[in-house]
Every structure is written in C-alpha cells, then in structure tokens.
C-alpha cells in the first residue's frame, strides 16, 4: 500500500484519537469527542499502524506523527491513578508500622548508631563535665543554658520567640535533617552514618551538659513530650538511608540499578512516615513542650505515654490483616 492510500484509509482514526487526547488534556474547543470505550481499540489500531508505517519505510514525518500520537496515548492510558485517601489511611493505620517491622534490621542498625552515641555522650558528661565543651562550643552551651533558665516563662525558647514561629522552625529544620539523613544513604551509607552519629553526639552532649549543670527539671520537662516522635523519626530516616546503601552494597541477585529502584520504594515509605512523625513532633514541640506545667511529673507522664504508644504502634499496628 502506498503512503497516500494508507493516510487516506486511516487518517480519520488518527484525528479522532488526537482529538480525544486533546479533549482529555483539557482542551475545551474540541466538541466532537468519541466515547471513552472505543479509545483502547483505537489506540491499539494506531500502534499497529505505527509498526506498519515503520516497517514500510513511510516518510519520517508520518512515522513521527504516529509515534507522537502513540506516545501521548500511552501517557493517558497508562497513567497511574492518583493515590486515594484510603491508601494514605491504610498506611497510617498499620502499613507504616508493618514496614518498620519488616525492615527491623536497618531500623535496629540506625537506632544503635543514633541512640548509642547519644547515651554514651550523656553518661560521659555526667562523669567528666568538661567533655561537653569539647563537643560543643562554650558559646553555644551558654546560649542553651539561657534557653532553659528557670526564670523563663516558656521552656526551650529564646524569650523573644513565639510558639507558632518555633513550630515552623522545627518543621523547616528537623524534617530537613531527616531528609538529609535519608538522602545521604545513596553515598554508600556514609551520609546517613554521618548524620546519625553527628546528631546522636550533639543531642547527647546538650542533654548531658544541661542535666549536669542542674537544669534537669527544665530540660526534661521540655524534651519529654516530643522526644519519642522526634528521636524515633531520626532513627527511621536513618533506616531509610541504609535501605539505599544496602541496595548499592549488596544488591543480591539484582543489578544495582534495579535494586536501587526496588529498595527505594521501601525507603520512600519509611522516610514518608518519618516526615509525618517530624511534623507531629513539631506541633508538640512548638505548642505543648514549652508550657510550664505544675507539677512537672504530668509532662514526664505525657512523655512516657508517647513512648509507650509509639512503641506499641510499631510493635502491633497492622498485624490483624494477615501480616
């Protein structure tokens, strides 16, 4: 069949499909729109015609037009449906916890690398108080001391700051640290390792120092309520990073490229959950943690309750559905 005849015979189908795709993309000017039910049939026809046009060496312009049409059709027909609200709810209600349990190895690794230095530094400073100024500059230490001074109206803030402002700052800063901990995993885990150790050491040194100079009541009643959310979120971000590192270091029977994509999907679920935890932590840290509540033990109770709830969530949520 000569090209002209080919164009004459199938041209109408091409225009119809072109119009439908245009209308689907939001072009309001197209009135004549075929029913959606014929589109898969039409699309398969055009695919066939593209193959024919290539095989018969029709002119490049025609082949390009058909290729373009197939490409656009492919985009419309194979677009994944938008993730529904149900999927998100299922993730919150148990999917996230299940993912964390399944990935317990990397979660444990990240937790050891984060909580280990934290506790070590805290203990070390109780024995050798001067050690704090080795890790953190004396100026920063003085500033910290000021933030937690017993004379403050609110805990953990400079007197000029407000709750809303601090909330936004925590979202901006803490979530970013989580994202960096995750992204650093692609460098064979070195970035993740660095951020986990660094934050563990830093947080441990500050807590250790403030406790050691006698600001214990202030610092603990500030930190208690949001500690579970925030610290676990950092550990899970690290776990997400180590998933990427694992894909590079030991991809198993897959190519590294494929392993990265597959492990990346799991890592994304972990970091997504961690990001939600950072956000929740920022709300608590911004609006509840700074309050001075008498007696302090109430806040300690809230803190302990948060740890129990979160650990129970990660331990048991989402087990019912045949996990």
């Amino acid at each position, binding site marked *: 069949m000569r090209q002209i005849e080919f164009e004459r015979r199938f041209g109408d189908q091409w225009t119809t499909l072109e119009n439908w795709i245009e209308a689907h993309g939001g072009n309001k000017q197209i009135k004549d729109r075929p029913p959606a039910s014929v589109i898969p049939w039409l699309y398969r026809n055009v695919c066939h015609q593209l193959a024919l046009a290539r095989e018969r*060496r029709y*002119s490049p312009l025609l082949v390009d037009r058909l290729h373009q049409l197939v490409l656009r059709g492919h985009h419309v027909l194979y677009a994944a449906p938008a993730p529904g609200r149900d999927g998100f709810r299922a993730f919150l209600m148990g999917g996230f916890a299940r993912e964390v349990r399944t990935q317990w190895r990397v979660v444990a690794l990240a937790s050891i690398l984060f909580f280990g230095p934290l506790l070590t530094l805290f203990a070390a400073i109780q024995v050798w108080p001067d050690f704090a100024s080795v890790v953190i500059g004396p100026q920063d230490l003085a500033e910290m001391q000021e933030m937690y001074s017993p004379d403050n109206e609110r805990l953990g803030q400079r007197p000029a700051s407000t709750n809303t402002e601090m909330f*936004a700052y925590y979202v901006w800063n803490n979530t970013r640290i989580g994202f960096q901990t995750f992204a650093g995993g*692609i460098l064979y885990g070195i970035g993740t390792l660095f951020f986990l150790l660094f934050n563990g050491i830093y947080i441990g040194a500050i807590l250790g120092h403030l406790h050691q100079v006698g600001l214990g009541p202030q610092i603990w009643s500030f930190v208690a309520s949001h500690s579970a959310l925030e610290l676990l979120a950092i550990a899970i971000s690290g776990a997400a990073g180590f998933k990427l590192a694992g894909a590079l270091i030991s991809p198993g029977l897959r190519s590294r490229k494929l392993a990265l994509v597959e492990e990346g999907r799991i890592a994304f679920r972990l970091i997504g959950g961690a990001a939600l935890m950072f956000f929740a932590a920022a709300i608590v840290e911004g609006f509840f943690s700074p309050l001075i509540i008498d007696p302090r033990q109430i806040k300690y109770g809230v803190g302990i309750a948060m740890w129990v709830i979160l650990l129970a969530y990660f331990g048991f949520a989402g087990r019912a559905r045949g996990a």
Partner: protein
Amino acid sequence: MLSPLDTAHRVATPEGVELNLRVAGPVPRALAWLIDFGWRLAALLVLAFATSVMGEVGTAVFLLTWFALEWLVPAVFESRTRGATPGKRALGLMVVRDDGAPCTLGPALTRNLLRFADFLPLFYFGGLVAMLSNRQFKRLGDFVAGTLVVYADPATVARHIPPLEPKRPPISLKPDEARTVLDFAERAAALGPARATELALIATPLLRDHDPPTQQLTQYANYLVGHASD
C-alpha cells in the same frame, strides 16, 4: 532512524511497538533548574517582604513556605499532567518513569528528596558526574526513583512534501533509499535553496535531466508516496 549517537531511550509497550524517548542532557536540565531556582527565590523574597510586617506569624508562614517550596512543590508539579516544574516546562522537558509512563507523586518526591545528595559536594557536582556516567543522564535521584527526564512533545512542525508532478525514479530504490528521498523532500523547504541543491546533488544516479536537482527529488518523492505517475 536512530543512530547510536542519539540520546534515545527505547521502551517496548504492551501493544508491541517501541517508543523512543529523547532523554535530556545536563545543559537543558541545568537551565531548567536555574529557572526554577529563580522563581522560587523570587517567591521567597516577595514573601519575606510581605510577611515582615506580620510579626511572628509572618516568620512562621515564611519558614513553612520555604520548606514546601524546597521539598514538596517541585514534586507536585512533576506528578501533574504535564510532568514538569515550570522551569522544565519552559525548556520543553518532562519527567517520566523508566517505562515511559507518567511520573506519580511517590517517585517525584523520591527524586526531589535525593536532590540533596546530588548537590554534594558542591553545587550539584555529584549529580553532574552521575548524569555524565550513564546513557540516560540519570542523576542519583533518578536512579532511586526510576525516572527519566525527557523532551516532551516536540512542537509539530507543519511540513509536507511540496506537490509537484510525480515522476518515477529512473532506478528502483531500496526501502531505506526511498525513505531518504522522502525525508529530503519534506525538509528541503526548510534548508535554503543552496544547501538543498548541495544535498540533492549527492543523489547523482537519480538525477537525469536538466531540471533543478531539488525539484527532481521532490517529484520522485511525490511518486513514492503514491501519487499516480502519468
């Protein structure tokens, strides 16, 4: 059709045809990034002025917007219909998944979070090295998300073979030769007469009479697409 030099990525579809995606290289992508960086910076500057009079609530709005603009907004753009941030759109690029399907929110967020690693050690040097070391110009984020940055619809150029009286070529042409003649006839008008003649003269065995070479090849093309010869 595609030479080994082309930066094409081939995808086989379930319908049994091959799609050729044209992968975008570092330069257009850097320019697209620059445009995106520009509008984000401008938006933040405007916001900084606007919120400076609002006091502490203003600071909060500013920080939250900054956070969203850096980590979330580009991903939302890339998972919409056009699959592109404004910068990518301006350069005619879009993000697709490795199988040619449109990018969804998950991969879009993944590649956007990984931008931090691509930035290292300084100013996207890591990302550039990664892009130059693979055929698909993937940066680290593209590897993890399984995405590609490709050229979106090339503007369809209204070109056609100028209608002239069809003439049968003096010798019978192989399919690829015929295709070359068609390709030439479609592009001749865009080339400029001198260059067109120069190219047409390469096809010496086809040129028989004293008509201008471009005209002769165009006549053959008219014959080849199926206009009846007299």
